[in-house]
C-alpha cells in the first residue's frame, strides 16, 4: 500500500509550525528512512500516517484513504506504529497477551491471533519471556514487545519511530532481519531515526529532514550534498567520513562497498 503526502503543513496549538509544506510519495512495498535531528519534524510527519495528527494544510493519503476522513482506529488497520516510548502502550500482564492486543482490537479470529502471536514472538526473540510481565523486563526488551505487537497486526504499512535507541549489536541485527522479512512480505516500511550509520546501511531510500522540511531524497548520494547535511546538522556516516579523508571517489554505504572502492583505487 502506498502513501501520498501533498504539501503537508502542520502547526501545533502552541503555534509552532512543525512541518512546512512537505510532499512525498512512498510506493507500496518501499522501504524509506526519515533522517534528521530531534525537532526536524520526522515524528510529526509520520504521526499523520495513522491519523494521530491531522494536516493543518495539505493532505495525506494512505492507499485510497484520505486520513482526514478516517479515525485513528480505522487507519490502524492499514498502518502499524511502533512508538518511541514502548512503555506508553504496555498494559497486559504477560508478553503474549500484550502482543495479542492489536489483533484483538482489529477483530481478527482467535486462532489466527494465536498464530500471529507465535510468529511475532519468534521473529522478535521473545519466546523465553512470553509469559513474563512486560514491566518486569528491561527497557530494551520492552521495546521488542512493542515491535512484536505491531508485527502481529500484519498491517500493509509499518512505521518505526527511533527503533535503534538503546539497542546492542544483537538487537540491531535482529532489527535488520525484521526489515528483510517485511521486504519479502512487501510491507511498506518507514523508519524514523537519527542514526546515520544504520540508516545508510539498511536503506536505499533516504529522506533528509530539517526544520520541518524535506531537504533531499535519494540513496547514499544525499550525503554528497554537504549543504543539506550541514543544514540537517548530521554527521556523515563513519565510512563516508573515512572515504572522504582518504580521498576516495565514491561514497560507500557499507563496509563491502568501501573495500570495493579501495580495491578499485589500488587497482588490485
Amino acid at each position, binding site marked *: 500500500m502506498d502513501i501520498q503526502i501533498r504539501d503537508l503543513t502542520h502547526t501545533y496549538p502552541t503555534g509552532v509550525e512543525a512541518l512546512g509544506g512537505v510532499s512525498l510519495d512512498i510506493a507500496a512495498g518501499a522501504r524509506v528512512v526519515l533522517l534528521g535531528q530531534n525537532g526536524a519534524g520526522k515524528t510529526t510527519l509520520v504521526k499523520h500516517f495513522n491519523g494521530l495528527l491531522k494536516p493543518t494544510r495539505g493532505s495525506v493519503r494512505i492507499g485510497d484513504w484520505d486520513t482526514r476522513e478516517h479515525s485513528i482506529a480505522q487507519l490502524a488497520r492499514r498502518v502499524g506504529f511502533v512508538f518511541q516510548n514502548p512503555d506508553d502502550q504496555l498494559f497486559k500482564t504477560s508478553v503474549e497477551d500484550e502482543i495479542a492486543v492489536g489483533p484483538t482490537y482489529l477483530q481478527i479470529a482467535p486462532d489466527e491471533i494465536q498464530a500471529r502471536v507465535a510468529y511475532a514472538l519468534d521473529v522478535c526473540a521473545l519466546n523465553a519471556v512470553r509469559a513474563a510481565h512486560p514491566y518486569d523486563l*528491561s527497557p530494551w526488551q520492552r521495546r521488542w514487545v512493542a515491535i512484536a505487537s505491531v508485527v502481529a497486526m500484519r498491517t500493509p504499512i509499518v512505521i518505526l519511530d527511533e527503533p535503534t535507541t538503546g539497542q546492542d549489536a544483537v538487537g540491531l541485527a535482529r532489527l535488520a532481519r525484521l526489515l528483510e522479512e517485511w521486504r519479502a512480505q512487501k510491507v511498506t516500511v518507514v523508519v524514523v531515526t537519527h542514526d546515520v550509520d544504520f540508516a545508510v546501511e539498511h536503506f536505499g531510500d533516504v529522506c533528509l529532514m530539517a526544520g520541518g522540511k524535506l531537504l533531499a531524497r535519494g540513496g547514499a548520494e544525499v550525503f554528497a550534498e554537504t549543504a543539506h547535511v550541514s543544514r540537517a546538522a548530521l554527521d556523515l556516516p563513519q565510512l563516508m567520513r573515512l572515504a572522504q579523508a582518504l580521498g576516495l571517489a565514491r561514497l560507500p554505504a557499507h563496509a563491502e562497498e568501501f573495500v570495493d572502492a579501495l580495491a578499485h583505487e*589500488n587497482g588490485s
Partner: protein
Amino acid sequence: MPNLFVEQLSFKYLHATTPALQGVTCTLQEGAVTAIVGANGAGKSTLCYALAGFIPHFFQGAMQGRVRVNGKDTKETPLADLVTQVGMVFQNPFNQISGAKLTVTEEIAFGLENLGIARDEMQARVNDALDLFGLRAAASQSPLVLSGGQQQRLALASIFVMQAPVMILDEPTSQLDPDGTRQVMETIETLAAQGRTIVLVEHKLEWIARLAARVLVLDQGALVADGAPREILERANEWGLNETRYARAARLARERAVRKNDARLPQTLEQAVEWFQH
C-alpha cells in the same frame, strides 16, 4: 586520591532468577576514563549501582563480595556519605530534573543545598559549573524547556559541583540525538582532561575509543576482559558489541587482501585514516 576496589562482587535482584553480576573483581584507575561495555543485560548498570552504593542501599537483593570506596565498605557506609565520594548520572535526562527548582542555576545548586554547603561556596561552584558545562546562556531558564543534550549537561553539572572524586555515567547519551551526544561527549572529554576519575558505560564504541584509557567488558554478569581500548574493542563481535564501522572495514580489507596492515584494527576516524594509509 580516590580508590575504588571491587572484590568478588555478585548480586542478584530480589525477584530475579539469575544473578546480575557474578564474581566481578577490578580496581578503578584514578584520573582516567574507564569504560564499561557489554551487550544489553550484561550487568553494566548493576555494576554502576554497586560502585555508587545504590546496591545495597537502594536496590534489594542478595549481595556477595565487597565494594570499597576510599577504604570504606559500601555495605557499611550510609548512602549519604557515599554520594560525596561517587556521583552518578543516568540515562534519562528528564528524570534527573528535581522538579523543585525553576531555573538551571538553582537546579545545579540543589545537591549543594542538600549537603548543607554555605551560600557563597555554592555560588562559586555553581558559577564555575555554568561556564564549564556551557549552560551560562540558559542559566535563568527552566530546566524543563532545555533540549535533551542540555538536560544531560545539566545533570553532569549538578553532580560535578558536589565534587565527588569519582563520576559514574550510565549511558548518558543513549536517549540523545547526534548533536546532543556530541555535546555530552565533548564535556566528558573536558572533564577527563582535568584529571577526573570517570566510569563511562556506553554502546557507542567510537567514543569509547576516543575517551577511555581502559575498557572493562561484562558478559552475562561476569567480567570477561579488561585492557586497553584498541586491544579490547577488536574483539567486539565476540561479546555482541556494536563494532565500529572503521574496524569492520579494516577487517574486511585485511580478509580480502586489499590491505596488509597487521596493526590493531582502527576504532576512530583518525586511527582509520592512519591504518588505511599504511
